[in-house]
């Protein structure tokens, strides 16, 4: 009986460790790196976003997307010489729970999107991008609607790198 209880406890612990947030692990690895900018938005903050008044249509659209999110983490390492290496290392990190959504590799930057599904819904979207002098790791947690996210930049007409600079300046 005691052996069975110990075995069950050990299995629970190993399962818990396995399903630990892969992004969190990468965050911890680069914890002491001064070149790294890390941003974490908690679920509480996402709840508070719902109290923001907005009259503009594009902001309303954004708020609608945000309302289904529960957490966000961003890790940016700029001015690096090993962005491509970091990218290659990072795309190996996600466990079997994550599936590759799309990958783009060109001479400027390599990019991979991973998704994690729960009950047929995308519960996490991870974006890993690495170029010659930059590295970005981004994780969105919550109920994610890819169509809605895709529409955002079209409606606001903002290029990706502009947004990256916007984050880095903070």
């Amino acid at each position, binding site marked *: 009986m005691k052996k069975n209880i110990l075995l069950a406890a050990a299995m629970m612990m190993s399962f818990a460790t396995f399903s630990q*947030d892969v992004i969190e692990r990468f965050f911890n690895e680069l914890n002491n790196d001064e070149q790294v900018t890390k941003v974490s938005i908690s679920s509480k903050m996402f709840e508070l976003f719902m109290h923001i008044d907005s009259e503009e249509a594009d902001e309303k659209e954004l708020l609608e997307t945000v309302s289904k999110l529960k957490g966000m983490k961003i890790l940016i390492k700029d001015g690096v010489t090993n962005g491509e290496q970091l990218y290659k290392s990072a795309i190996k990190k996600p466990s079997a729970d994550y599936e590759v959504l799309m990958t783009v590799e*060109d001479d400027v930057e390599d990019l991979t*999107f991973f998704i994690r599904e729960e009950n047929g819904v995308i519960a996490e979207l991870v*974006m890993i991008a690495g170029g010659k002098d930059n590295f970005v790791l981004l994780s969105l947690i919550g109920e994610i609607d890819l169509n809605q996210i*895709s529409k955002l930049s079209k409606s606001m007409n903002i290029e*990706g790198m502009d947004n990256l600079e916007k984050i880095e300046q903070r």
Partner: protein
Amino acid sequence: MDYKDDELKRLVTRFWDGESTLEEEKALKDLVAYGNLPEAYDDLAAYFESMGALSDELTLDSSFDDALLEKIDQSEQTNVRSLVKPRFIWAAAAAVVMAFCFVLFKAPNETPNMAASNQETYSKEELQAAFEQTQAALLLISSKMNNATTHADQLNKFHEATVRVKSRK
């Protein structure tokens, strides 16, 4: 009480068969005690005398009660130790496992800083700054996703053009 021979015989038979009542047994004992039992029933008299001697020998003094009560006390204490202690250990072990699992399952989505910040109230400026960062991050994802889709569209167009050229030939 005086018994006729056949009544006494029947009574003694009932006694040996284990069918006599307590009153009948007492009557037989009285007959033995007062020497009123005929010699034919000497075996019964001998039996009652031996039983009386045995019961005298079996009388327990007060030290037996003390010793017995002491043993019962010790037994109760031992039982308490053997039951309560393992329950406590397993309850504690279960609590530790549950706490460990709770931390691992619950914590991944929140860094320690985030967990701490949950307890705080945010100013309007902080809320606005967080919202702008979220907006920027979402737009970054959106534009990267659209860039990737554009690449895919271009490949599709190239494929469609190739198929069209091949079909003209």
